Each structure stands twice: as structure tokens, then as C-alpha cells.
């Protein structure tokens, strides 16, 4: 089966029952996506498909073959970190770091669609990503900074990251 991950194409032999998380880590060596609860509760395994954050631990790999998948390894542009990665560094938004790949993927999905989210919109978008270290405050500060940077980018590069996703709205 063909997988499009981080703008690269991989041909992978699948039996059928592999999760996307297993394929990314064990077959493609993309270990930035973390394995934690493995039952859709923590967000550590978040990747983006078509610009949306999804959980790779409950995604059957065969089901998303051929779709544009972005993992944490696909965010940086060569030596240049993605604005969200850079802001997490600058603001000290990571402690042990285990949740951070998932947190950054969920944040990138949000900011790509809505670079200036309110605090409530941030909390809503990241409500599936659990961090036991940071207390989230630094993460929200990093998001504000990253969003500013991303909205200044005049021509976002053509990538799965910039595909349309529905707006994250505040409480109706």
C-alpha cells in the first residue's frame, strides 16, 4: 500500500490490521509520534490528515493509505523549525517533552486554520492532549506567538498543513 507521509511516498506491505501508529513508528521509523495510552485518551499519538489532528493509535493504517499524512517530523523546513516548534522552544513550553509532538500537531492544526485563537478556542482545540508537566500556560503563550508568526507568513508553503479545516468556534 502507498503512504504519503511528510511529502514522501512510501510503499508498505500491510497485513491489514496494523494501526497507523504502528506503521509510522515500526515500519517507517518515524518515532516522533508517541505511543502512550493507546486507547484514544491522551493525544500523544496525534498526527494530521488533511489538516486535522487525528489519533494514530485508533486509526487503521490501511484506511488512510494514499491520504496526505503529516507527523512531527514533517513540520520543520530543513534546518528551520516550524513556527509552532520554535515558539514551544522559545517559551519553554516543553518539560519532559513526551506529550509535545502530539501537542504541536494539534496546535498546528488549530493555528493553520485560525492563527489568532482565543484562550477558549485554544483549550477547546487542545482538549484531547494531556500534559502532566507544564500546566499548559506556557503552551498557550507559545501558541499566541506561533499564531502571530504564522499569520505573517505571506505565502504558506503548499502542504497538507494548509488544507481547509472547519473553523474552531467558541461556545455557541
Amino acid at each position, binding site marked *: 500500500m502507498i503512504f504519503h507521509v511528510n511529502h514522501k511516498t512510501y510503499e508498505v506491505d500491510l497485513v*491489514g490490521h496494523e494501526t497507523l501508529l504502528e506503521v509510522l513508528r515500526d515500519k517507517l521509523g518515524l518515532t516522533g509520534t508517541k505511543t502512550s495510552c493507546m486507547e484514544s485518551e491522551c493525544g500523544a499519538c496525534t498526527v494530521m490528515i488533511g489538516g486535522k489532528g487525528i489519533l494514530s493509535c485508533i486509526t487503521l493504517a490501511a484506511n488512510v493509505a494514499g491520504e496526505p499524512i503529516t507527523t512531527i517530523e514533517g513540520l520543520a523546513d530543513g534546518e528551520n523549525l516550524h513556527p509552532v516548534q520554535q515558539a514551544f522552544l522559545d517559551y519553554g513550553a516543553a518539560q519532559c517533552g513526551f506529550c509535545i509532538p502530539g501537542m504541536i500537531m494539534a496546535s498546528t492544526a488549530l493555528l493553520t486554520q485560525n492563527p489568532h485563537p482565543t484562550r477558549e478556542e485554544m483549550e477547546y482545540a487542545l482538549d484531547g492532549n494531556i500534559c502532566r508537566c507544564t500546566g499548559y500556560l506556557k503552551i498557550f503563550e507559545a501558541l499566541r506567538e506561533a499564531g502571530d508568526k504564522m499569520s505573517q507568513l505571506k505565502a504558506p508553503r503548499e502542504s497538507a498543513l494548509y488544507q481547509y479545516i472547519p473553523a474552531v468556534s467558541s461556545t455557541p
Partner: protein
Amino acid sequence: MLLNPLTFHAPKTVEEAIELYSTLGEVRLLAGGTFLLNSLKLLKKRGIKTPQHVISLRKISVLQGVKVTGDTLTIGAMTVINDLFSSPHLTDNFAILRTVCRNISTNPIRNMATVGGNLTSRYTWTEMGAPLIALEAVMHFCGTNHTTESITVEDFFKNFAKTEKILTHITIRRDPAAALAYQRVKKLSDVDVPLLAVCIRTHFNDGCFTRTRASINCTTSFAKRDLVLEEFLNGKKTANGIAQEALAHLDTSIYDTRSDDYKKSMFRISIKKAIEDLTRRGQT
């Protein structure tokens, strides 16, 4: 590996899916996977046999999306919760669905879980049931030999949400005169498990409640209507105090009597708040 070996099928049309569904033995449908994948993992962990075949509905484009035709809102069974939430078609009585979607689970689950899966996965605590009963929604299924079947959400849950068919879409009639209130209580744990939900739809006629439908979700049984409460409210003036009075007119047999006192009391509080909300709107 987290799952037992299985054969994966990805039909592109409903017809192909039906054909596979009716000919393969030991088969499960895959929509967003939020229920199925977790359940297959759990069964494997417990050493219980899992189905040999999984049929994904992801590539069947007609099952996706939300549209309005005339007075009818159509929600494709494969529409994910977040896409329903952000649909521009959620106006008038449909707007209550935005509140319902907003409160379901976490963002990645809302990006993955489908409306069809929420109704058909046979979890008593999934939440779409109560509001869709209040909205008099209808579910449309496709079965073998191209047979189609339509059934109200209310009747579907009366039959314990059992089906051997493929849900294709859900329809709801527009009703600009309807007023709806929704209240939901969740338990904060690792996962925000919804404990109960109440949805009341009514119309106001001469300052009185009329054509009221009150539906509840209480996690231990499938969503259903409280006919006693409906009967009490219909014809009553939207006066202050009516919400309190209504609490003496509940069909106590349908509420979760095994639950803790706090949950019983949260039900009463939720119903009261929903009626107060409607009363305020009826008075203006």
C-alpha cells in the same frame, strides 16, 4: 500488534459495501474507528476472538456531508462530529446540534467520530440520540438487494439500536417555530464521560407549551422520551415556577435509578434548567 489479523475492505459505493457486508461472515463496519478500534484492541487483550473482516465506509463519498434540500437537513452517516459542528446549515431548530457536537468528547475524537457511528455503535452513553429524538429525526438504512428502510431515531433506540443494515443518512425537518433546550452533565475522569443529557423541544402557543418532546440520555439505557413530563408541560403557561413544578411529573421508570444520589439530583437540575431556559424564551 495491537489488533488481531483481519482482512480490510474499502468499498467505494454503498452497493459494494452492502454486497460485502451480506456475503462475508464475521464482519464489522468501520466508520471513524473511535469505538471499533478500541473495542477490537480490548477483545484481543482479553483473548476474545475478533471479526475476520472489516469494511471501511471512508471512501464512500455519498455518505459524507451536511446539506439542506427544501425544508430538510440531511446529515451523511460518515459526517464527523466537528464537520457537523461547523456546518453553516445549522440554523433554526438544527442549531441545537452545534451545542451537542461542541460538548462531545475531545477534539481529535470529534475529528474522527461520525454521526452515524455515534448512533449505531450501541453504546448507551453516546449523545446524539436524545437531541435527534427531540428533533424527530429519521434514520435511513440500506440493506441487501438494495432495500432501503427509514425509521425514526426514537424507534431505533426503542429497538435497542440494533441493525444489520448500513446507515446512509439522517434527515430532520426544519421547524423555525420550535424552541430547544439542551443540558448535559459529564464526569471528569481520564476521558470526559457524558453522564446524562436532556433535550426538550417545544412550541409556544398563546404563552403555553405545546407539542413538547422531552428526551433523555442516561448512560445505562438508550435515549428515550419522558412522556409524563411532556404531558405535564403541554398546555401549561410558561410561568415562573413551572420548572420546579415539572419535577413532580417525571417518568421515574426511565431514569437511572441505580445511580448515585448526585446523579439523580443532576438529572432534576438539568431538567429544571432546560425548562427554565424555555420558559424565559416563551415569555419574551
